[in-house]
């Protein structure tokens, strides 16, 4: 049996990679994918702890996190498409119009 701490360590590594992706990439699609990676890492840790403490509620909440992620992706991608239509560029560094 694989120790639960291995799964939690793997999820920490995946979360760090996702955070790094949000920070260094400037394509909003890749930033979104990194956010999905971080949500997924959190889900993995939650399922690992569910297995450790033998409570089923963790899996239920992972299911809810998945639905929230789906809703977030739908709205976020719609926003990206709208911004691309008006600006013809998706570089996030150039979206500083609201800056004073």
């Amino acid at each position, binding site marked *: 049996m694989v120790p639960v701490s291995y799964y939690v360590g793997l999820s920490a590594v995946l979360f760090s990679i996702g955070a790094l992706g949000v920070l*260094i990439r400037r394509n909003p699609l890749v930033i979104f994918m990194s956010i999905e990676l971080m949500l997924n890492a959190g889900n993995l840790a939650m399922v690992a702890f569910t297995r450790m403490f033998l409570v089923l509620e963790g899996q*239920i909440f992972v299911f809810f996190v998945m639905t929230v992620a789906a809703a977030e992706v739908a709205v976020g991608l*719609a926003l990206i498409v709208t911004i691309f239509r008006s600006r013809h560029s998706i570089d996030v560094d150039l979206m500083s119009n609201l800056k004073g």
Partner: protein
Amino acid sequence: MTVELALFFILAIIAIGSALGMLLSSSTVYAALYLVLNFCTVAVFYILLNAPFIAMSQISVYAGAIMVLFLFVIMLLGTQSVPPSKVLPWQRPVAMGLALLLAAEAAYLLFVRGAAAGSIPQPVESFGSPQAVGRALFNEYLLPFEITSVLLLVAMVGAIILTRKEKGRR
């Protein structure tokens, strides 16, 4: 039980490698495909952790629906690559340092506290089975489940309104 450990390490290498591939690939389509691979390996981890229902919804929701949506949007926007930034040149090294710090913090906490989380109890036969998950979902968690459907409806309406072309303004 060494087979399971070997499987874990092989899958962990694939998961971390595909995450790094997503991070470093310059093409958005390749990044999306790497992420699909990552989601599939995580689904296998869920099966190893007695969560077959979560594994299947991972495949169908994440690797299926969400990534197909991503690929559609990539096709819509074209696969243009963003050139290196001149706006914030100092940001990249700082970001790498901070991400390393985050990983180091997580590793520290894991090594300090991880020793306490040692033994894994043997589950009863039906733990995490789709029947058990469904029973909990439709008995104790019925209201959150229904609220989830409202949330998805709101997200759908929001996406349609955001991307709708306005006919009145020309």
